């Protein structure tokens, strides 16, 4: 018998792989989960520009500088696609920006680590963007239409990010002893934080089950993390470098790499705001927002003036 229960009808739609669009009925929790996830994702793109912005003026060649500028510009665009998708759920852009600036909203903890050397630009592209891409490829099939469309657009643009990162490291790995050491050092510092990007273990994660039932996510944190490790453990061989985990080993029975325990205390610490750069990142966002206020005002005044002239 056909049900008239809205929640059940909603789940039936999801099960039939019918995308949910902004004006469709959806459970409150579905709206809230998507809003939280998409806006956090948007904030991550925006804050993610900061560690790289640090190196635009110090890129070693004009080519590298042009590439880095293009990458950072992409990230601003990705933030915009995601903010637009989140707005369809009923929260204003101003509100989201305010939540980020006053510390209420979260963004990916990875951007609270510092970028100390040029090799970090390589490691960020290869590992951080690599980890993000696995998540984003999965999200291209997420059940909320606007989010899925934003992800498709982002994934198309993102693959150059990872490739340019690997290429930076590849060049360093063939360079002088100092360049090789710089390459290894960056990998050592970024490896564990990259693994943390996938979030808490499945056994600890509170949002996972419902998100998978609603097909917001299609893979669990642990599944994605394993996929990433298997991929990177092979790629690192081409660089002739190592990953800083002595427990990392191919397990022929599981057909996956085994790996050591993640430092979850560090993870929660950074999430809670005590990472190396949390304060610096938020200060930079606030400063940009405050110092841009006159531009927003001026543009509005200019538009009003032009409109008055036409009328």
């Amino acid at each position, binding site marked *: 018998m056909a049900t008239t229960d809205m929640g059940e009808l909603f789940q039936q739609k999801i099960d039939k792989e019918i995308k949910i669009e902004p*004006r469709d009925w959806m459970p409150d929790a579905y*709206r809230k989960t998507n809003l939280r996830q998409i806006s956090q994702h948007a904030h991550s793109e925006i804050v993610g520009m900061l560690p790289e912005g640090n190196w635009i003026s110090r890129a070693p060649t004009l080519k590298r500088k042009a590439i880095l500028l293009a990458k950072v510009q992409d990230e601003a665009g990705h933030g915009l696609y995601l903010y*637009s998708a989140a*707005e369809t759920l009923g929260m204003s852009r*101003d509100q989201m920006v*305010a939540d980020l600036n006053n510390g209420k909203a979260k963004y990916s903890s990875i951007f609270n680590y510092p970028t100390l050397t040029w090799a970090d630009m390589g490691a960020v592209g290869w590992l951080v963007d690599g980890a993000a891409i696995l998540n984003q490829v999965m999200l291209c099939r997420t059940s909320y239409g606007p989010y899925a*469309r934003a992800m498709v657009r982002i994934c198309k643009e993102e693959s150059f990010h990872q490739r340019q990162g690997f290429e930076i490291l590849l060049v360093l790995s063939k360079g002088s002893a100092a360049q090789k050491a710089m390459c290894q050092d960056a990998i050592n510092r970024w490896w564990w934080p990259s693994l943390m990007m996938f979030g808490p273990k499945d056994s600890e994660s509170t949002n996972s089950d419902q998100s998978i039932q609603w097909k917001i996510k299609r893979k669990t944190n642990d599944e994605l993390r394993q996929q990433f490790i298997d991929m990177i453990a092979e790629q690192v061989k081409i660089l002739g470098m190592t990953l800083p985990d002595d427990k990392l080993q191919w397990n022929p029975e599981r057909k996956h790499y085994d790996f050591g325990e993640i430092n979850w205390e560090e993870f929660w610490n950074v999430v809670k705001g005590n990472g190396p750069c949390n304060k610096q990142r938020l200060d930079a966002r606030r400063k940009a927002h405050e110092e841009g206020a006159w531009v927003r005002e001026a543009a509005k005044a*200019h538009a009003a003036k032009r409109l008055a002239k036409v009328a």
Partner: protein
Amino acid sequence: MNTFIRKCYYGDIPDQKGAGTPEIHTDFTAEQWPLWEVFIRSKQGLDHKHAGSLHAADAKMAIENARDVYTRRQEGVSIWVVESKHIHATNPDEAESLYEPANDKIYRHPAFYDLPDAVKHM
């Protein structure tokens, strides 16, 4: 503040409160620039297609921003922008009455007609 959201974006702007219209806590201020929908023609001969949305103070700025955001990789040769509030849309509640009548009219499709193989070029 408790507000009824009447705007749903991506070209899905309801004229009045629909079944999908959420009640949500927000802090809408008149401060933010209006929202625009962006349509891109990817090459000569093709339709403009909805690409996404953005905020801008006026149409000129909306086009400039759309160019920077949506055509960085030769995705377009022409841009349309329209302020989102000017888009009128059907309501999901009406989907059945609007679109289902087409389901049983298969005679509108060429494959409905069974013709001998001898008939060529048809």
